Every structure is written in structure tokens, then in C-alpha cells.
């Protein structure tokens, strides 16, 4: 039993320490966490999509930010917040990382960012039903997770399929329906943003930036398995 307020602190040095930190903030509201961090709670998250995640990162001492390496790089652990409702249903897909549309030559699953980020994940559920004001949203109990063999292989298959489309110039044909668990969706502040990609004939084209997302089925299965 811990009776001390969690000190927002430096990078955790071990998996156990990270888990302890995450457990220490479980049950607190975002308002309480924001107060402890000395930041204000935004009125809505439309414009500040990653606010919740960043707040949690801050409290757990993550350093990687939005870089393509795990949040806790030296521990090899990625932090992911998971919006759920009161009944424990996952409410949204989970952003994994930006999908590189160029420079993928020789890219392999084992060295890919998706694989890197999903090797070991600290899932932090957040009670985030739309009806609950942001300040009152509650941080859930952390789940430290690694993919099972079958999950790993399913992710790998999805990734291979999506990367093939990206690399062979079919990025514009990709819809969220590709992939069983991993999907590729536009990832940008607005629809006008474009980034470089590769076209049908190997020529450079402009495409909306894409991100890898985990479908809800996948994260729900993690929660369900944890609940037993």
C-alpha cells in the first residue's frame, strides 16, 4: 500500500518502477494530474488530441515524445492510453505511429517502428466517455503487455500487406478496411496536409500523411484477457 502522493519524477529505471508509477496515478482524475503537473485542462480535445497521453507521459517520466522509438526507450516499453467506458469497452482505435510513406527500402517487420513500439506496451486505460468532462476522466489500472505469438504474427501479416501497398505505389488505394488488426488511416491535423509518397510508377506523389492504428477488437481483447 502506498501512502505517498506520486512525485512526478525522472525516468523510471526498471519495468517494476514504471509499473509502480503507473499504479500510483491509477484512479486519479485528469484534473488532479494536470494540477500536479501545473498545466491547465483544455476544454475539448479536438485541437489537443494527444493531451491526455502527454499528461500521463509526463507523470511517468517518458522522454521519447512523438519520436519513432518506444516512450521508455531504455526499457523498450511503449506507453499507450486506451479510452474505455465504464463497462471497460474500448472506445477508440489506438494510434501506433506515423507510417513512413517514403524511405522504406529494405524495411523489415522486425526492425519496423510498429514492431518496435508494440513489443512491450504499458496500456493505461482512461475512462473517457464523451459525456464525461475531460477534467473528470479517470486514469485506469495499468496493464503491462506483450503480444502473444498469434497476435504478433497477425500484426506482422497486416504490416507486410500494408507496407507492400505503400512501397509499390498503391498508397492511395489503402482504406481502413485493409488489415485485420492494424489499419492505415490519415493522420494529420486537417485533410489538406500532404506529404511525399510513392506513386503507381515509382514517381513521387503527394499523399495525406498516414498512421498505423490498432483496431478496437485488438485492444478490447487485451482488456478482456486482463479482466479474465
Amino acid at each position, binding site marked *: *500500500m*502506498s501512502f*505517498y*502522493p506520486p512525485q*512526478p*519524477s525522472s525516468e523510471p529505471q526498471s519495468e517494476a518502477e514504471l*509499473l509502480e508509477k503507473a*499504479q*500510483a496515478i*491509477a*484512479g*486519479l482524475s485528469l484534473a*488532479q494530474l494536470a494540477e500536479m*503537473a501545473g*498545466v*491547465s485542462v483544455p476544454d475539448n480535445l479536438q*485541437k*489537443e*488530441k494527444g*493531451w491526455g497521453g*502527454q*499528461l500521463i507521459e*509526463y507523470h511517468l517520466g517518458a*522522454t521519447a*515524445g*512523438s*519520436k*519513432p522509438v518506444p516512450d521508455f526507450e531504455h526499457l523498450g516499453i511503449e506507453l499507450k492510453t486506451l479510452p*474505455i467506458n465504464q463497462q471497460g469497452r474500448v472506445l477508440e482505435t489506438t494510434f501506433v505511429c*506515423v507510417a*513512413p510513406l517514403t*524511405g*522504406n*527500402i*529494405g*524495411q*523489415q517487420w*522486425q526492425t519496423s517502428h510498429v514492431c518496435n513500439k508494440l*513489443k*512491450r506496451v504499458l496500456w493505461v486505460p482512461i*475512462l473517457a466517455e464523451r459525456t464525461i468532462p475531460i477534467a473528470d476522466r479517470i486514469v*485506469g*489500472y495499468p496493464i503491462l503487455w*506483450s*503480444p502473444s*505469438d498469434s497476435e504478433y504474427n497477425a500484426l506482422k501479416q497486416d504490416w507486410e500487406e500494408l507496407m*507492400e501497398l505503400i512501397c*509499390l*505505389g498503391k498508397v492511395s488505394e489503402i482504406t481502413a478496411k485493409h488489415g485485420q488488426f492494424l489499419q492505415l488511416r490519415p*493522420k494529420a*491535423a486537417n485533410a489538406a*496536409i500532404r*506529404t511525399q509518397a*510513392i506513386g*503507381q*510508377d*515509382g*514517381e513521387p506523389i503527394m499523399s495525406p500523411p498516414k498512421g498505423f492504428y490498432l483496431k478496437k477488437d485488438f485492444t478490447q481483447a487485451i*482488456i478482456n484477457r*486482463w479482466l479474465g
Partner: protein
Amino acid sequence: MPIQILSPQLANQIAAGEVVERPSSVVKELLENSLDAGATKIEIDIEKGGSQRIRIRDNGSGIDKAELHLALSRHATSKVCEIADLEAIASLGFRGEALASISSVSRLTLTSKTAEQTEAWQAQAEGRDMQVEVKPAAHPIGTTIDVVDLFFNTPARRRFLRTDKTEFNHIEEVVKRIALSRFDVQIKLSHNGKMVKHFRSASDDAGQLKRIATVCGNQFTEHVLLLDCEYDLVKIRGWLGEPQVARQQRDIQYCYVNGRMMRDKLVNHAIRQAYESRISTEQHAAYVLFIEVDPKQVDVNVHPAKHEVRFHQARLIHDYIYQAIHSALNQQLVELSENLHNQNDFSFDQETGECFSKDDHQVHLYSGQQAPSLFEREIAEAPANGYQPSFRSQSHSSASNSSVTPSVHSQIEHYSELVSPVKNTEPLAELAKVKSATTFSEQDADNAVLSLLPPSQILFKHQQKLFMLSQSAFLQMMLQAKLKFTWSEPAAKAQPLLLPVAIKVDQALLNQFQLAQGLLSGLNFTVSIPTPNTLVIQKVPAIFRETNLAKVIPNWLQSLDKADVDGQEYPEAAMNKLISVSLSSQEELTWQDVISEVKDYNQISEQDFCYHAAQFATELPYQRFI
């Protein structure tokens, strides 16, 4: 029209529609047959653009007399014999359709002699049933196929033929493509009796380059880079035209996969990408490229004319081709200007292709993000508050080359880095589950709930006796039994709540909490105090998982007296208070609720049930119900 089986001739003519588009397709099919037969000398005689005559003579292995009639039948081939062969096709042809198709739309004569035979034989197929007639003939070892009057019986197709000159140009193009694929084969091409091309067999680089010059012109061979690299399952050899000899047309693009000439999208895509930014969008790279892959890694049975193939590991092959060409072109650039790459302030991350600025203190934006988020701005401005988060960016360049040119070999090594899948490592240590009920049969069980008696009464039997129990008493009893079990059983594990419950507390309640700490930990509650006015219930005994803890726990804490928590073996008073606050919020039970409660109960202990049933239940005279 009734349904009927097509005559062999008509079936072949239909197939010919796919395979034999124009004279040059006949030449292609026949040349491939010659090469598959191991010919080293091939003579091609064309008359009137091929519409009058296409004669191809080779010194290959020839066809045995007994097989001659089969050679002209459809679906007859010596190149595959079972489905497994299709998975690794090493020959150029394999469908067994070419000769039958061609002979159905022309007058075809096949003359052949094998090394074993003392005489040559000639075969010709005629009529609706394509009966094959075999006659003796004079011919050296090898095969001659004489195709006369192409499309004489298919006027529709004949009308599509262009001028003799155009058709011959197509033939010449086919011959050139095949000539480039086999430097070791001597090929002569003549039109209307005049020798047009003579490709001598070339064994050394100079001879090969000469043949390339014959096909692609001297300008190409003077500005060419030799490419030769091999990795595991892919081998690439070829000549790349330097960017300055890029063409306005796609006329010097010769690509071969396992010796088969190819216009494959994937290969073209990779090559185009490799030349990117070296040639303009209107230009086309010039190249002669040979790609060798394990036949098992490629499916050629995709396109009737076999212009396309399908690679099993399409992306890896694509990337490999790109890389090979890209680095060869770069190598040339490096030689041109050594200092080209020395001015870069960015480190190039090979894996992402992203450039990281070396400025350490900048907030990093993902692609598409235009400005730092509110959080990032606030936290960057915030005064030292406990600690400063380090949004320290590490430049991931240490492992990468300082040169933009990735070393081919280091990149290629990525292919072989086969890391074994991550095993599912140990689950949360705290996570343990109370076994759920396994089997429960109402007939067998000693404790059986028989019925619900409205209002709020439960009828159940126990050891041949009937009991009636009020719903509240039933729940009370169940809860008491469970509490007792949890209290006394060290194996009863706490379960973390997915959504821990925070309770606002004042000083008074905090004091009560201090008082009840022993009780809470005895029952396997885990409660933390993250801020001075908040209690957070993080783990609970299994029985409280569904309880409204935010209400029950504060009510219970408030109701506790000092006397309740004294060091007894089982703090009955405190537990009874917990039971009463827990049950006050209960609603009417359904049959399902009762059944699941009893299931749970059976898991705990029969003795407990007896003990408690006796306390609460009213025993009913058994006879009244019989």
C-alpha cells in the same frame, strides 16, 4: 444454339487469340521453344513481315518421332508434368499451347531430328480434328518450324495486321529482346531473304557489350554502368544507362526475370524509383537488367503472354532491385564529386528516411503536425515544478552512415536479421484470478435452489431438508461466508480494478480510514493516498468487484467504531457493518443472480453454507410439499 463441345481446331483458334496476337508473338513462342530445347544456333527467316512465312531453324535437342504428333496437340508439353513443377518453372514455356495454337491459325510444318534418330521426321496438323500426319524428311539434328500463311483461316485477325514493315519491326524487337537474354546463342534474322541481324555468340564482357550496342546503340554502351550483385535469393546483373542517356521513349528498357523478358510493373516501379530525381518525369531510364531469383519465389503463370510475374516476397524483391540500382547510380555520383555529401547538417535515419535536426531542445513534431500541442507548449514554458521533463531528442544517427548513400551491404543485412518473435512474457504478477465456477448441477448438488417465492423469498434444499430464506438474508449469508473466506484464506488474491475508484476524503474520514487499515488489508483491499484528500481503491477482493465502492467504502468507514476493529480473529462487528452497507443498495434478485451466487457459494465451502443457513433460514416441514 445447343451446348456442344468445340472442335479441337476451334478450341485452339480461341487459345490462339490470346497467345498469337501478331507474327511477332509466333516468333517469340518459337524462339522460346528453341532456347528451351538447348539450341545454340538459331536462324529466323521472315517473309513479308511474317504473314507469309516465319521459319525458325535451330540446332536444339529435337523432338522424338513418337512425340511429334503430341507436339502439335494442345495441352501437350515436355516442360511440366505435375502441379509441383508449376511452382518452380525453369523453362520459358510451360503451357503446352503455342504449337497447337499457331498451327490452328496457319499452315505449320514441324521437322525434327534427335541425336538418337538416324532420320528426320516432319509433322503437320490439318482439319477440324487437327489430325497429325508424320512423314520422313531430311534435316540435321534440331528442329525447323515453318509457319506459312499466318491467319489464313481467321480473316478477322488478319485484318489487324499492319504493313509488312511494321510487323517486321515488331519481330525484330522480339528477336532483340531474346538476343539480349542469351548471349551464348547465335541468332540470325533475315527478312525476304536478306540478312538483317546477326548476333554472334558472346562469351566475354566485350562481346556482350558489342551485342548490347547492336541492340541499344553505341550511345547507350558508352554511358553505361555495369551492375552485378547477389544476395541470398536474388541476383541482379545488368547495364544501367547513365542519367544523361535517359530516353524520351521507353525503348531501351530490357528487363529479364530468370531469362524471361518481362514488362513487370513491380520491377519497373523499383527502377523508376531508383532513377528518381536523376531524370525528369518525362524521361525514361535506359537499362538492360537480368534478375535471377529462385524459381520457387516467383509465379510466372499469371499472364498468358508471361509479360508479368508475381513475386512471393514482392516488397523485398522490389526493395532489393531499388537498392542495387540506387547504390550503383550513387556510386557513380560519388566518383564524380567526392564532397557532395559533406555539407549536410542533418543526420539521416536510414530506417525512417526522416531527417532529425541535431538541435536538442526542439519539440519534435510528427509529420503532418504543424505546431507543438498545447501540452507541449505549456510544459515547455512551465517553471521548474518538481522536475522538468526532458523532451530531449536523441539523434539516431550513430548507427547510420554519415553518407546519404546507404551501404548496400549493411542495408542488405537487414534482410537477414530474422529476430525470433517476441514471446508473451510474464503477465502482471499481481494479476490472479479466483477460479470461476466449473460445474454446477442442481440435481447433484446438496445445496440446490429450487425456486423464487415472491415476494423476495428463496426456496432451497439442503441435506434433504427444505428451507425458505428471505432474499436479504440470503445475500447477507452469502456475503458473510465470502468475507469470512477472504479474511481467513491467504490464497484469496486481490484483483486490480480496471478503473480504480477515487474517494474524496476529509480529515475525519481519513482518521476512520487509518482506523480501518488493518481490516482493509486483511480483506485484500489495496488503497493508496495519492493526494491528501483522495483515497484510491486500486485492488479489491473478488467479491467486491461489482460493488459500488465509491458509496459502500465511505459509508462503512464512517460507521466503524474503535471497538469494531479490535484484534479479534474475525472482526465480526466490523464485517457485519460492511455487509449491511453493501446490501443496502441491492436490488431485487433474479433467478440468474441467485443461481450464480449459489455457484459461488459451492466454491467456498459446504460447511459454511450449513452453518449460515441454519442461522437465517426457516426450515419448512418437508411433508407439506410432497
